């Protein structure tokens, strides 16, 4: 008993003379994700994105912190009215996404995030960018499918974009419905042990499908 207690003492002292604070990756990430879900406005979102970026810089092999950093800025960009500002925010987001892709070039979620970024760019200059960015978006979703065909967010993005495209361009509710239904199925089947894994898109898929249903019943009724 005696030796064990002394050993315990030495071990504790040794631990304390090293780093004053152990890096708690999961704790810091959960904290930041909670913050991300509650921020609004440019200043708060940038603080949150910077927080994720700091974690990313400290953890040299993880792509997820960069993912959330970019994700929070992309979501912000859709709400920004000033077009020049939107482009600037997306430039920052693209840089962060590129860093994530450098660490994990074959991660399906990163390609989905890229496909989520593109439509925000279109509004800055619709006539010049419309066609080429829509093309890029669908092509990137194909890449995401290649790396993980069960990623539900792929089908959510595909469906919601088809829904908002005019029928003459190949979109519309009829085309979008089966894709969104597939997304809902994939969300149900999606399972991961990682508490930090992105979860967005499930609720939104349900809402979009409801909207389609209501539109159909309105037409019929």
């Amino acid at each position: 008993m005696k030796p064990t207690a002394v050993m315990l003492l030495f071990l504790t002292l040794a631990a304390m003379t090293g780093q004053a604070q152990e890096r708690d990756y999961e704790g810091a990430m959960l904290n930041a994700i909670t913050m991300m879900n509650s921020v609004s406005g440019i200043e708060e979102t940038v603080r949150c994105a910077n927080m994720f970026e700091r974690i990313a810089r400290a953890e040299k092999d993880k792509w997820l912190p960069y993912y959330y950093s970019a994700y929070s800025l992309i979501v912000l960009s859709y709400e920004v009215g000033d077009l020049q500002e939107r482009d600037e925010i997306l430039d920052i987001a693209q840089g962060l996404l590129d860093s994530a892709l450098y660490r994990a070039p074959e991660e399906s979620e990163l390609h989905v995030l890229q496909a989520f970024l593109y439509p925000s760019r279109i509004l800055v200059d619709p006539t010049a960018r419309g066609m080429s960015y829509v093309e890029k978006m669908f092509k990137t979703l194909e890449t995401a499918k290649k790396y993980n065909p069960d990623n539900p967010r792929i089908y959510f993005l595909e469906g919601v974009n088809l829904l908002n495209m005019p029928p003459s361009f190949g979109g519309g509710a009829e085309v979008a419905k089966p894709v969104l239904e597939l997304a809902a199925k994939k969300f149900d089947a999606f399972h991961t042990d990682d508490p930090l894994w992105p979860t967005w898109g499930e609720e939104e898929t349900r809402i979009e499908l409801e909207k389609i249903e209501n539109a159909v019943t309105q037409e019929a009724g």
Partner: protein
Amino acid sequence: MIEIRHKMYLKSILSILLLSLSMHGMAQISVKGSIADQRGNGVAYANVYLEGSYDGTTSDSAGYFEMLTYETGEQILAVSCIGFELFSMELLLGPADTLLRISLKEKVSELNEVSITAGVFSASDKKKSVTLNAMDISTTPSAVGDIYGAFATLPGSQKVGEEGMLFVRGGEASETKTYMDGMLVRSPYFSSMPQIPTRGRFSPLLFSETVFSTGGYSAEYGDALSSIVDLTTSGLEPDDKASVSLMTVGASASFSKRWENSSLAATGLFASNALHHRIFKQNVDWIKDPVLGDGMVMFRQKLGETGLLKTFCSFNAQTMEMNYDHFEAGTIDRIRIRNRNLYANTTYTGTLSEKWLIRTGISFGRDLEDITYAGQPVLTTQNSGSGKLVLTHLTRDNLKIRWGTDVNWENYLLDGSTDGSDVVHMNDIQPSLFVEPEWKINEKLAIRAGARAEYSSILESGSVLPRLSAAYKTGKFSQVSLAWGKFRQKPVNEILMFAPGLQSARADHYILNYQYKRQLRTFRIETYYKKYDDLVKYRVPYSSDPRDYSNAGYGYAGGVDVFWRDRRTIKGADYWISYSYLNTKRDHRDYPLSVMPDYASAHNLSVVYKHFISPISTYLGTTYSYASGRPYDNKNDPAFMSGRTISYHDVSLNLTYLTRIFHRDCILHMNVTNLLGFDHVFGYLYSETPGEDGKYASKAIVPTTGRQAILVFIMML
């Protein structure tokens, strides 16, 4: 007994632990301070952190930051912020708070900062300064899919409807040179009959970026008195694509294939005006309606991280024949034109090292123009080639220097006989050297100075020409630019072949402009003055006596161009208004004195409006063009060039309907020119001999037809 000793051990362990805890002082300390740029302005949203830890914070709008940390001892503090170089410093964190004043160094990039705009309309998707791109050109009704037709709706250009070429700021069509990917294109226009407009050989859809400069252009370009058109072909094809199209003027098919690091695109076109001429009656007598066969191949290959190799090759063959009403001579002459044209270029862009960029290329062109005029055959063969090398040295963050050299070779052969007895043969090699530093003095001021040395072997003379331009940012969205330069151009081959001793013509440009660009709205006003000297004069046209030629001509051109483009105010619509005022006079050719030349008009106005009508999936475009009367020489009036034609008005319309047939994207496009059926008179021809009453008969130069339309159907496969 044992329990009491155990308890005492525990107590001592605990007290030692507590002691050591207080010695370490597990308390947070604050690291705070301010972050500023080189000028002392606070930098907001900077990410301040300790390397290896999650601890950090974001600076506020004034650049102040405060972060709390448990870290102690030697640390590295870093600051990252977009637009700035990464900052780091060593820090010794003690028990007391740390106060810092940090200065960040700016990263000078192409995208933000001031850029030289005097005399230049630059368009690309990358730069936010989009003025005209491939889609713009294809959807500008009056252009009818012709690059030069679209540029004609921009300020600085003149309406010269019977020629179809680009006339810029009082200069002749030959004063504008065309480049593709930086390589000179000797014959960018198709062949055409007299008084019938031509168009550009290349489809606007090939180009991702078009630079139309109306003066004061870079030292990279030479041998052009007025302006430069530089077309950048698109990069790697994004996808595999195929399409066919059917038009009232022909049919075409194209496909593109993409591999991981390379792509190939090819297009074949067959065009015939036969059907078009049946529907829209021509006032000229065609024996053989113009027929064109065209093939084009583009290959791209990514080399390494940053290198791109581009190869372009196009071949076209044209035939047409008409009974030309040669009014001046009072005869009907049969003219047949057969043209074969080949153009190929290969370019490479890449980085040689961290500080050196390279852009190089070679091109080759061959043009055979076989004209039979009233039984007389004239075969003109032009072979041309060029090689170019441009090295950009990124000397410092705010200074880059371009070094370049190019060689243009031209071989001109005119055979006006059936037995080879009447042959003109000219060979010209034009080497040149240029250096052009571009200095961003600060985020508000940029200067580009250049010098160009060029030589022409056929003229046996060379010159050193300075160029200077500067831009100053007057506000977040506005800037003022100026440009000055000396330009030279050798006489055209048709004149040089008679008088090889002639010198180059000269022009000095002075340009000043103001530009405001914000949120999809652009306003530009530019004023310019060009002084011409050593223009070619001849006693009579087509004289074969070299003594009839001289460089005694001179002139000037001055004016104001105004441009307003708005893609925001009206939802779903894009419109621009372009107005040019031109005051020009010159004494050249066989003019007896200095007058406004017949291809210039004082006022030119273009209003282009485009709108996407979502419910019917249709793009609607309309152009209104106006030009004040052009000068013409009335032979019956002793005063030279005193006549003025009626003003020019034109309304053109195009509709593009997008649909899906058999699950394939289809486009139906209709383009109508001169919708309101205005009369157009470009000038007058006068007979060579007076009539019985002593007066010379005249005939107006008019378009070959009034209102006309083209229908195009495209299906993506």
